[in-house]
C-alpha cells in the first residue's frame, strides 16, 4: 500500500519503537501533524516552546538510553531548537529531530518561514539530512536513528520539505542500514588493552577517572567491577556521576573545578591515570600545563578524536567502554601481576588525609537556608533514588556535590554547553519515561524562568515534578566570579523584579510553596514528594552570598584548589610518595 510522506514519517517512528515525540506544530509540519492525529501508537507531547521540546527529548534520552525524538516546523520552529540540539550535541545525547521545511520548489527563495535548516544546525549535529526524494524518506529516518545511537551518540536532524510529506510511495522500513562511510570501532585493540592492564597493575598511585561515556555506554557495572577488583580510587566527572556508586568507599568524588579536594589532589599526584569515556574538558583538567605531571595516561574512548585532543595519551584504546572494560577485567584476573598492595595502601592513606579535609563542608545556619542543606535533605528523603535534573549555576554544583548518585542515568544536567533553562523541560522527559519515579529539578531563580512556560506542559500531561528553586536573588555563579575575580563589582548579576513564584506556580495550576526558614525545608520536601499527583514549585529563599567551594580558578592546577577560607590546606604538609 502506498502511504504519504507524512504517514511514512510516523510509521517509521512507530517501527523504531518510539514512545514519545516532543513537538510543536506549524505550517510546514502540518501534514505530519495530520498523520499523527490518525494513529494512537506514537504519543505526541505538546510543549510550549521548541527549546523545551529538545530538552524534554534529551531528558527522556538521558534517563532511558533510548533516543529522544523531536518534531517541529520550519523556520522559527527550527531556530528555537538550536540551543537544545547544541546541548545534546555537547553531551553526546542520542536524539532525532524531524523538521518541516518549505516545499522543495521554493527552497532558496526566502519563502515564508524558510531557514536553511541543514546549514543552521550543521555545526551542532552529529549529522543532518535534507530529504529530496520520497523514496529515500524511510531509509533516511532509519539512518538518522542508526547514526544518533551508535558510536559516540549525538543529535541528527532530518529536514523534510512539505511536498515530500504529501507525496506517496510504498512504505518499507529497513531492518538495518549499512553506511560505508560510517563504521564506528567497537572493540578495543587487544595489544593496547594488554598494555593498559600492565600499566594499571604496576601503578603505585593510580586513579580511575571516568565520564559520561560510562553512562552513555551502559558500562557502569563493568566499571564498578574493575574498580573493586583493583581496589583503586575512582573519580567521576560532572557528566559521569552515577557511573560509579557515590556511596562506595573507593569513590573519591567528582573532580574538576568544583570537585573534591581529594579527587583533584589524587589526579595531580597519580602515576597512572585510567580515563574512560571522558574527554579532558577544561573544567576537569584545570590548567593543562599543570595537568597530571607524573602520570602515564591510558585513555579509553569510542571517539578517536577525543583521544590526545587536549592531553596526549600514552596508551590510547579506541572502542566501546563496556566491551573494553570487560576485557580489562578478564585480563586483570588472568594476569600474574597483582596490584602492589603496599603502595596502594600508602596511596589510600594519603587520599584519606585529603578526604578528612571535608572540602564540601559548609556552615549550617538556624536563620537562613543554605542551598547545600536543601540538596542534602532531598538526598536523605529520597534515599538517593530520585531522578535529579538541574539547570546551570551554583545550584547545579551543589546538586552534584551533595546528592550522592549510586546509579547511572539519575543525574541529568547540561554539562558541556551549560544551558540555563534545561532543567524543567528535561524533567518532563524523565517523568514521562518514569511515571512512578520521584523526579526533582534543582534550579535557580535565574535559570527557571528561561523555560518557565513548560509549567503549562506539566499541567497538561500531569507531570508531578518537584521543582526546587534555590532562590538566592542573584545569578549566583556569576556573582561568585565577580566576588572572586572582579573585586565584587556585581555587574548585572542581581535578579531584580523577580516574580512571586508561588502565585506564578498557582496560575499555571500547580502547588506553590515559599520556604524561608531552615526548619521548614524538610516538611516542604516531604509534602511535595509524598504528593505524587501534583507538581510542587518550592521557592526556597536561600543564603544570598553562599559560594561554591572548593574551586580551581583559571590558570590553576588540580593541586592549587581555592578552599573555603576556614579550611586548612593539607597540600603543604603532604609528602609525595
Amino acid at each position: 500500500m502506498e502511504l504519504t510522506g507524512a504517514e511514512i514519517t510516523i510509521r517509521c517512528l512507530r517501527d523504531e519503537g518510539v514512545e514519545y515525540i516532543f513537538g510543536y506544530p506549524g505550517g510546514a509540519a502540518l501534514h505530519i501533524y495530520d498523520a499523527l492525529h490518525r494513529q494512537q501508537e506514537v504519543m505526541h507531547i505538546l510543549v510550549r516552546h521548541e527549546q523545551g521540546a529538545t530538552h524534554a527529548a534529551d531528558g527522556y534520552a538521558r534517563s532511558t538510553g533510548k533516543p529522544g525524538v523531536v518534531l517541529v516546523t520550519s523556520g522559527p520552529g527550527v531556530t528555537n531548537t538550536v540551543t537544545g540540539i547544541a546541548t545534546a550535541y555537547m553531551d553526546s545525547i542520542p536524539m532525532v529531530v524531524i523538521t518541516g521545511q518549505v516545499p522543495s520548489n521554493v527552497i532558496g527563495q526566502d519563502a515564508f518561514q524558510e531557514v536553511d535548516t541543514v546549514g543552521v544546525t550543521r555545526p551542532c549535529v552529529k549529522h543532518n539530512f535534507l530529504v529530496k526524494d520520497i523514496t529515500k524518506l524511510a531509509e533516511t529516518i532509519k539512518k538518522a536513528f542508526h547514526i544518533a545511537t551508535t558510536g559516540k551518540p549525538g543529535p541528527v536532524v532530518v529536514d523534510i520539505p512539505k511536498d515530500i510529506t504529501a507525496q506517496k510511495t510504498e512504505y518499507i522500513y529497513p531492518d538495518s542500514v549499512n553506511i560505508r562511510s560510517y563504521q564506528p570501532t567497537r572493540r578495543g585493540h587487544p595489544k593496547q588493552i594488554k598494555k593498559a592492564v600492565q600499566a594499571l597493575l604496576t601503578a603505585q598511585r593510580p586513579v580511575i577517572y571516568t565520564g559520561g561515556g560510562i553512562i552513555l555506554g551502559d558500562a557502569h557495572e563493568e566499571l564498578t567491577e574493575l574498580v573493586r577488583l583493583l581496589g583503586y580510587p575512582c573519580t567521576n566527572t560532572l557528566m559521569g556521576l552515577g557511573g560509579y556508586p557515590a556511596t562506595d568507599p573507593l569513590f573519591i568524588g567528582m573532580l574538576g573545578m568544583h570537585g573534591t579536594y581529594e579527587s583533584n589532589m589524587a589526579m595531580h599526584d597519580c602515576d597512572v591515570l585510567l580515563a574512560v569515556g571522558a574527554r579532558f574538558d577544561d573544567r576537569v583538567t584545570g590548567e593543562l600545563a599543570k595537568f597530571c605531571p607524573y602520570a602515564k595516561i591510558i585513555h579509553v574512548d569510542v571517539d578517536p578524536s577525543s583521544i590526545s585532543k587536549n592531553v596526549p595519551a600514552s596508551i590510547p584504546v579506541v572502542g566501546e567502554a563496556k566491551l573494553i572494560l570487560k576485557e580489562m577485567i578478564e585480563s586483570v584476573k588472568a594476569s600474574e601481576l597483582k596490584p602492589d598492595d603496599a603502595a596502594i595502601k600508602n596511596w589510600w592513606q594519603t587520599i584519606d588525609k585529603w578526604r578528612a579535609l571535608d572540602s564540601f563542608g559548609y556552615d549550617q545556619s538556624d536563620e537562613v537556608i543554605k542551598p547545600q542543606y536543601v540538596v542534602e535533605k532531598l538526598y536523605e528523603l529520597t534515599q538517593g533514588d530520585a531522578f535529579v535534573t538541574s539547570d546551570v549555576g551554583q545550584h547545579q554544583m551543589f546538586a552534584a556535590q551533595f546528592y550522592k548518585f549510586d546509579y547511572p542515568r539519575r543525574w541529568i544536567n547540561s554539562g558541556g554547553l551549560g544551558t540555563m533553562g534545561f532543567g524543567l523541560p528535561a524533567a518532563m522527559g524523565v517523568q514521562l519515561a518514569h511515571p512512578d519515579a520521584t523526579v526533582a529539578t534543582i534550579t535557580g531563580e535565574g535559570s527557571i524562568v528561561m523555560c518557565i512556560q513548560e509549567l503549562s506542559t506539566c499541567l497538561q500531561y500531569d507531570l508531578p515534578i518537584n521543582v526546587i528553586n534555590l532562590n538566592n536573588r542573584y545569578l549566583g555563579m556569576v556573582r561568585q566570579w565577580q566576588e572572586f575575580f572582579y573585586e565584587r563589582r556585581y555587574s548585572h548579576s542581581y535578579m531584580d523584579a523577580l516574580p512571586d513564584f508561588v502565585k506564578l506556580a498557582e496560575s499555571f495550576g500547580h502547588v506553590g510553596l515559599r520556604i524561608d526558614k531552615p526548619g521548614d525545608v524538610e516538611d516542604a520536601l516531604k509534602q511535595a514528594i509524598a504528593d505524587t499527583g501534583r507538581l510542587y514549585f518550592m521557592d526556597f529563599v536561600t543564603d544570598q552570598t553562599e559560594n561554591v567551594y572548593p574551586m580551581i580558578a583559571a590558570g590553576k592546577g588540580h593541586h592549587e584548589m581555592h578552599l573555603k577560607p576556614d579550611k586548612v590546606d593539607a597540600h603543604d604538609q603532604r609528602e609525595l610518595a
Partner: protein
Amino acid sequence: MRHVISIVMENEPGALSRVSGLFSARGYNIESLIVAPTEDHTLSRMTLVTSGSDSVIEQITKQLNKLIEVVKLQDLTENRFIEREMMLIKVKAHENTTREEMMRLSEIFRGRIIDVTDTVYTIELTGNSNKIDSFLEALGEKNIIEVVRTGVSGIARGNRSLKI
C-alpha cells in the same frame, strides 16, 4: 608543517560545506582545497592542503574521519607522493622585448601560451606549488595582469592508492 590530505567522500550536496565548516569552526588553516567527482559518480575526491603541528594534524585527520560522509582519508605527506597544480596567467606582452621575454620564460618552465592578443599572453602552467611560485617570481609582479590557480591535487607514488 605543510600537509597534503586526500579524502574520498560521498558525493552528496553539502559534503564540501561540512569540511569547510569543520575547518573554520575549529580554527584550522586551509591553504587550498579542491574537489571533483571520481569515476564512481557516488564518490568525490578532495585534496586539501593545510599546515599545523603534529598534534593539530592528528586532530584534523581524526575530525575529518568523524564526518559521516568521509569514506577514506590519507595524509599524503606521510609517504612519497606527487602533487600538481595548474595555473592560468595573463601577462603583459605589448612590446617586442617583453613578448620575447615572456615566451622564453614560459618555455623554460614548460608553460604553454594558449591565448594571444597584441598586448597580452595567456599562459597555462602545471607543476608543484614551488614551480608555480618560482614562475610567478621569474615573471615579475609588474608583468602579471591576472592569476588563476586551481589549488593542489595529489596522489601517492608507487603502488599505494586510495581506492574504495
